[in-house]
């Protein structure tokens, strides 16, 4: 049995080698993928001029580069308000959150913006109301505030921005709003939706009056469309911001929001000397939009992250300010040196793995096709050069390599580079697809999780592993069957030998007895 198991052990050893090769390739794949990513990031940084955004007042505005490729300067002229979430509490308190009834009928209506949800309480208590609101998915979170005066319901919108927040008890009867109503801005929206914001006429006569509080702004449209009206209102000097919103039916509406929180009135009258049609519906709003002016343009939006106004740069509005804040996008060599250091680290990781599989003491992947090709590619990367500019090789950027091909980054050499050299260095690096960064694509041909050469080799090894496992199983089954048969034969032979020996003794005894009877002597020699 022991001898017969030896081939299985040998096959298992072979399988262990295959599995080890798979593991080594997996580790190499990760390393090559990381190197490809760092080269791609380095290239993207260089093609984007290694831009970094700085704010003159980081307490009011911060900014980040998100794709910009040219130096630029932006001015946030003012921030009237930053976006806040709507949050209200119940006007009345409840003595016991788990037993005091909160609704007179058990039927309630939650209003969040334009969405109204009617529901019937399964448990008519504050706890039941809180849990039911939280299960509605209405974009708000309800909680219970416990004070010395009792328990209050608190409702907070999940996202920032001006919105309507109401909770009505007995909506078909008394219809009582049980929340405090503290409007922080006033928003008006045109009642009638227009099919086309740029061509459908918005006014019957082209003359309108916008009234904010007690101040009226006459508007004579030069472009009788929703877009024209939006532009003229934003240029009117009124403390409101106009924007165009699209309803679920695809029609456009004009939305007006006051720039400063507080109670006021808002009206937009078409043909004020004639039909005097009111175009707006007014809704008290809780929460606030971010209202600000960027490069002289009035803007209002629900959130404080501004990423759709200036291409490739994202502003974060942090606090209101009346002083202009300057955001500057300029080349930042520090980012470049950090990316170069990351590249060097990732390169050396891949390099060390390739070296471990090379030479007389190489590992299980010695001679492997992918390893050899990656080694050649690493040599191309270290040998990459340009024939123009003041930076023509990695050495010019402060990257040196030893006899084994391992790289080192010299920060001092990099810090001594002039602005011209930094600019030439970025040209040398190229982009994510060209120059030094272009090697990223070559590396990805090895590390791609679907089509990469390493993945292909891993699949081949996986197949070999499966074949060996099947072979081992077949061999084991055959050996087991043969061993069982041989064991049975040996047992049968043992039994036969015992029976035969017994029979020989019986026959010997019989012959002795018969001979004694016939001849009076015993001529038989015992078996």
């Amino acid at each position, binding site marked *: 049995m022991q001898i*017969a198991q030896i081939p299985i052990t040998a096959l298992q050893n*072979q399988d262990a080698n295959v599995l080890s090769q798979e593991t080594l390739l997996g580790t190499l794949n990760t390393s090559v993928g990381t190197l490809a990513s760092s080269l791609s990031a380095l290239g993207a940084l260089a093609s984007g001029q290694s831009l970094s955004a700085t704010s003159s007042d980081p307490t009011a505005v911060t900014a980040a580069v998100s794709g910009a490729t040219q130096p630029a300067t932006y001015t946030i002229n003012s921030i009237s308000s930053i976006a806040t979430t709507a949050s209200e509490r119940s006007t009345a308190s409840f003595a016991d959150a788990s037993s005091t009834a909160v609704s007179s009928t058990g039927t309630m209506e939650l209003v969040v913006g334009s969405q109204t949800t009617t529901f019937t309480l399964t448990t008519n208590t504050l706890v039941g109301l809180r849990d039911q609101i939280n299960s509605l998915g209405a974009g708000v979170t309800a909680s219970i505030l416990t004070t010395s005066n009792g328990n209050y319901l608190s409702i907070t919108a999940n996202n920032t921005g001006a919105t309507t927040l109401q909770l009505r008890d007995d909506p078909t009867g008394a219809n009582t709003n049980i929340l405090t109503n503290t409007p922080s801005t006033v928003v008006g929206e045109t009642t009638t939706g227009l099919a086309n914001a740029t061509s459908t006429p918005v006014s019957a006569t082209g003359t309108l009056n916008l009234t904010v509080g007690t101040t009226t702004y006459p508007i004579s449209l030069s472009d009788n469309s929703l877009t024209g009206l939006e532009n003229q209102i934003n240029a009117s000097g009124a403390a409101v911001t106009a924007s165009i919103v699209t309803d679920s039916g695809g029609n456009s509406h004009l939305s007006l929001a006051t720039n400063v929180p507080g109670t006021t009135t808002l009206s937009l009258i078409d043909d004020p000397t004639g039909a005097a049609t009111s175009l707006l519906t007014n809704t008290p709003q809780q929460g606030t939009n971010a209202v600000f002016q960027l490069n002289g343009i009035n803007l209002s939006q629900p959130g404080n992250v501004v990423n759709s106004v200036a291409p490739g740069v994202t502003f974060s509005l942090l606090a209101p300010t009346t002083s202009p804040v300057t955001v500057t996008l300029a080349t930042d060599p520090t980012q470049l040196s950090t990316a170069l250091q990351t590249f060097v680290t990732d390169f050396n990781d891949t390099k060390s793995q390739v070296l471990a599989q090379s030479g007389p003491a190489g590992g299980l992947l010695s001679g492997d096709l992918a390893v*050899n090709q990656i080694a050649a590619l690493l040599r191309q990367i*270290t040998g990459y050069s340009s024939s123009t500019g003041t930076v023509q090789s990695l050495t010019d950027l402060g990257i040196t390599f030893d*006899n084994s091909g391992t790289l080192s980054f010299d920060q001092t050499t990099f810090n001594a580079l002039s602005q011209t050299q930094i600019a030439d260095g970025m040209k040398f690096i190229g982009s994510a697809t060209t120059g030094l960064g272009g090697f990223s694509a070559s590396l990805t041909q090895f590390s791609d999780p679907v089509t990469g050469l390493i993945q292909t080799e891993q699949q081949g090894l996986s197949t070999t592993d499966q074949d060996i496992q099947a072979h081992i199983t077949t061999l084991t089954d055959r050996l087991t069957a*043969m061993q069982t048969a041989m064991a049975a034969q040996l047992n049968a032979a043992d*039994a036969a030998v015992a029976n035969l020996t017994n029979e020989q003794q*019986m026959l010997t005894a019989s012959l002795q007895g018969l001979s004694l009877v016939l001849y009076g002597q015993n001529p038989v020699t015992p*078996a």
Partner: protein
Amino acid sequence: MTLQESTGRLLAAIEAEDFTALAKALEARAAAIAQFRASRPSPASIAMGQDSLRAGQTACLLLQALKQRIASESRRLAQIQEGFVESLRHSHQSRVDYRG
């Protein structure tokens, strides 16, 4: 079945390595020995019994040899399997050194 016949079948079964037939032949021989023991002795029957006793001794030797052959084949099978797998294990790729 006579003692001679059963002994003959015993030898034939060992030669054929048929352990089922061997078991049946041993049963028949045991019955024949019992009959022989109860029979009236004669010089011829004594001679026949002595022949069967010698044939039984030969059968014992043949049976021992058969056991050894089975054990030997088991070991040979193991060696064949081991050699086959070893030939797989040594089939590796050529090596190419890398210098950076």
